[in-house]
């Protein structure tokens, strides 16, 4: 899939890194750099960078085919609870489907989201792998 150059470039902070929005009013945390707290709507938020470590709390093995996805299938898509609190959706890569389980400790790694057009951009972003250093 081709993405807009400017959209992808503008989104670097939310895909090359994991930022967390902390609400100064309701105190809740949510992934991504956000203008407002998604829970209470407050603008009194601060953005902090996550270390990128967490625990896999739910996952699916996905065979959902989209153009250009065949090189990556099947994929594991899951929810990761970051050590800093929020839950983030992401792909879990480099996994043996038989070994994966809820509670697996994971770390964020830079990978290719997609790059199927040989003349187009390569879209990099964070995925998760089981932690290398136990």
């Amino acid at each position, binding site marked *: 899939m081709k993405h807009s150059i400017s959209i992808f470039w503008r989104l670097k902070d939310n895909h090359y890194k994991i930022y967390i929005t902390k609400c100064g009013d309701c105190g809740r945390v949510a992934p991504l750099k956000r203008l407002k707290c998604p829970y209470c709507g407050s603008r009194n938020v601060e953005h902090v*960078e996550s270390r990128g470590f967490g625990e896999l709390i739910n996952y699916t093995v996905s065979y959902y085919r989209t*153009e*250009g996805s065949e090189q990556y299938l099947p994929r594991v898509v899951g929810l990761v609870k970051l050590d800093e609190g929020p839950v983030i959706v992401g792909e879990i890569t480099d996994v043996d489907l038989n070994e994966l389980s809820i509670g697996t400790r994971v770390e964020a*790694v*830079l*990978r*290719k989201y997609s790059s*199927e057009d040989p003349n187009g951009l390569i879209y990099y972003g964070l995925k998760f792998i089981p932690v290398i250093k136990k």
Partner: protein
Amino acid sequence: MTSSRFRVGIVGWGAYIPVYRIKAKEIARQWGFDDRVTDSIWIEEKAVAGADEDTVTMGWYAARSALLRAGVNPGDIGAVFVGTESKPYAVKPSSTIIADALGISAKKLSTDLEFACRAGSEGIRISVSLVESGAVRYGLAIGSDTAQANPGDVLELTASSGAAAYLVGPADESVAVFESLVTYVTDTPDFWRRDGSRYPAHGEGFTGEPAYFHHIVSAVKMLMNESGLKPSDFDYAVFHQPNGKFPLQVGRMLGFPREKVLPGIVTPWIGNTYNASALLGLAKILENSKPGQRILVAPFGSGAGADAISVLVTDKVLERVGKAPTVEELIARKKYISYAEYAKFRNLIHRNLW
């Protein structure tokens, strides 16, 4: 331990080896080699980058580990170099992607370097000069490759994927200080890849004596002459390792006993990671070294050139080993794949692309 003579050193280092492995014998059988060929050059298995990995993603991991070990503020890094011969983009730097993803500031020098397998070590040499001159506080040099080899070429038995990164900075913050650095470069056409060509070509036997051996021997002898050091002054010697056999052979030619060379050999278990080859060997040595030990590292790049670098390990190494995955941990982490999966991951299968 750190002599005031030495102003620059390695502040942090990091390694990355993809999780996938293919047995060299499987590749040999795939293409009709007598499978004893793998023993003749000493290659057991090689690391294969996954479908979503490339030079940038592997270089990022190694560099992040170097930063974790160094514990420095990414904003203080003034130069980022990526040495590779498998740039994801023919035009567009890999180094800028890695730097942005690591939060390294925009005020920096940043470029991709190409000199076959020794561009990463040239990145170290440039970083040393930049730090020494006071132009930057820290320089980050990365060697990363998803090494290409024409399917069916003997090179395919070894060409693999991996990355190593070194953060170069002030000696008093370093885990090892640079004592001496020399480089020996000539025009020797042993291995090349033309623009637009998918796979490199090489002169087979010609890559040995006039290229690999001549350049490494010349560089190391130059270092010995200039520094007055002898093989017996070194605790370890690490050479570029296109296979398991060459580094032992060149060590012998230079008078290094086998036991000083063996600890730095990683290729038989992960393959030739090209720009990361000797640098992963150095990382493995650092992770097992003791303060005060002296290491010789001699990367080689076709085309051709070799560096000879002497480093002295400081006591800071001990506290930093455990802050990121070690080479041995990365080698032990593995999943075997078939030739078909390897071909899928490395884009060796012709497909209509969208």
